[in-house]
């Protein structure tokens, strides 16, 4: 575990010395602020539902920028040759880097808490619904980052990693829309189950269902395992 911890600390130290992290965090917070104001003043919402839905889509489009450098950046800088020859196991590298990216996600989530201040000052939002929404947000983000890390391992080019990740995540986000076109019950269930958006919307409605929690954790687990396996294999 200490190896993964060292990678994690290194990861955080390098993240905040590159402009990408600041860029992603600020764009995310500005975007969320805009959607929040829109939903409250123009739509007349008194909760976070609409804002959460917008945050989900922002997450899908911005997490590839966080995850793209995870391994592609190491290949490019030649530091992969250091990481892979130090006494580290592949899973320690993958996990340490993943947790570094998840920490950025946590910072983003924490930054959006400011939107709750006016909600609580001028209204009585349902705290349990908001908590469920944040849980869904973090779980969704974790799944996105794990998928992003996998694609970052597969290419040396960070831009390519980001583009492929964004395409795949958008595919998983919108796959639920195909439900309406399926006749077979099995395909309806499958497209619904694979949809990042449908699971997220149950959380946004205030429902924490084990199905949703398990789904995001399993997606993250599979992506991270594949990444570690790939690093071992490419030797």
């Amino acid at each position: 575990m200490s190896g993964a911890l060292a990678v994690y600390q290194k990861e955080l130290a390098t993240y905040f010395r590159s402009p990408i992290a600041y860029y992603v965090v600020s764009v995310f917070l500005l975007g969320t602020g805009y959607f929040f104001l829109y939903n409250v003043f123009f739509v007349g919402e008194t909760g976070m539902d609409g804002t959460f839905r917008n945050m989900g889509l922002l997450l899908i489009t911005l997490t590839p920028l966080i995850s793209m450098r995870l391994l592609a950046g190491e290949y490019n800088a030649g530091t992969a040759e250091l990481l892979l020859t130090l006494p580290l196991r592949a899973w320690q590298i993958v996990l340490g880097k993943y947790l570094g990216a998840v920490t950025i996600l946590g910072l983003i989530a924490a930054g959006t808490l400011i939107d709750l201040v006016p909600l609580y000052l001028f209204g009585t939002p349902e705290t349990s619904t908001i908590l469920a929404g944040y849980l869904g947000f973090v779980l969704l983000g974790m799944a996105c980052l794990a998928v992003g890390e996998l694609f970052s391992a597969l290419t040396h080019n960070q831009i390519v990693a980001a583009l492929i990740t964004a395409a795949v995540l958008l595919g998983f986000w919108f796959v639920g829309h195909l439900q309406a076109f399926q006749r077979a019950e099995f395909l309806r269930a499958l497209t619904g189950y694979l949809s990042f958006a449908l699971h997220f919307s149950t959380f946004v409605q205030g429902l924490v269902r084990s199905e949703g929690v398990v789904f995001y954790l399993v997606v993250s687990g599979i992506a991270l395992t594949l990444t570690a396996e790939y690093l071992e294999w490419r030797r």
Partner: protein
Amino acid sequence: MSDAAAAIVLESVSKRYGSTAVVHDVSFTVERGEIVGFLGPNGAGKTTTMRMIAGFIAATSGRVLVAGHDMATDHAEAARRIGYLPERPPLYDALDVRSYLAFVAKVKGIARAARVAEIERVVTACHLEAVVRSEIYKLSKGYRQRVGLAQALLGAPDILLLDEPTAGLDPGQIQETREVIRAFGHDHAVLLSTHILAEVTLICRRVAIIDHGRLLAIDSPAGLQRAEAQTNQVLLEVTAPSEALCETLGAVAGVEAVNIGAPTANGVLTAECRVDARDGVEAAIARAVAGRFALHRLERRAPTLENVFLRYVGGKGDRAA
């Protein structure tokens, strides 16, 4: 490491990418307390072999043993024994030198209490005191190379793998780096790749010559030079008719073969004689030639490692040193 096991053992190691063999059936051993130079032209397979020993890539066939641990099955144990400086120093530009070394020290499992002293030690050894607080992207090429070396030295590993450790350094830094390597080689095993011949003559106990992915020779520098001494050369510039010169040179005892080039515009011939190793053969040639013709230049080519190297890698042992 167990004393019985050699530091590095390669058993018919090959690496193929598709149908191209980059390294072909290479076997050799590096013992503890020995510095071995890995010599070859660019693209000979030095870096690929180093990467296989370091565990960055796996051998297609054959075995790599590091301190008795098989790199393929026991990577983490083997990696613990190795300090590795790749061809391109693997540095995190955004970190400062101290945080970078601290990261590597942590991963190498150096206990927290010993870490500061250990970083201090490698910083001093590699003369990095002036830049410990600088971010790595600000450093010159020479400093980057030495930060890479410092990283490899952390934790005093049993085995040091250095891929062109003096590339990009100025002469003073090269000198210092060689001292560091020499001092380290007393009780550790060092394998260093280079295409600088002086480097291996100066610090290596043995030299492995590799070209086109094949190991061509492995011996002490002196041993390789002894072998080359058989093909000593004497080079002459003389104003003389070609046949007469050939006849004169052929009559000198010790001259085995004569090769005369085309005359220049003012009638000067260049002749190369292959001679045996006996002393005074060039003096005998000088006497024989100077008595009859105008001798402008005579040079005996000592068996340098360069000649050895060129003979192995290009079949051109007679190329100018």
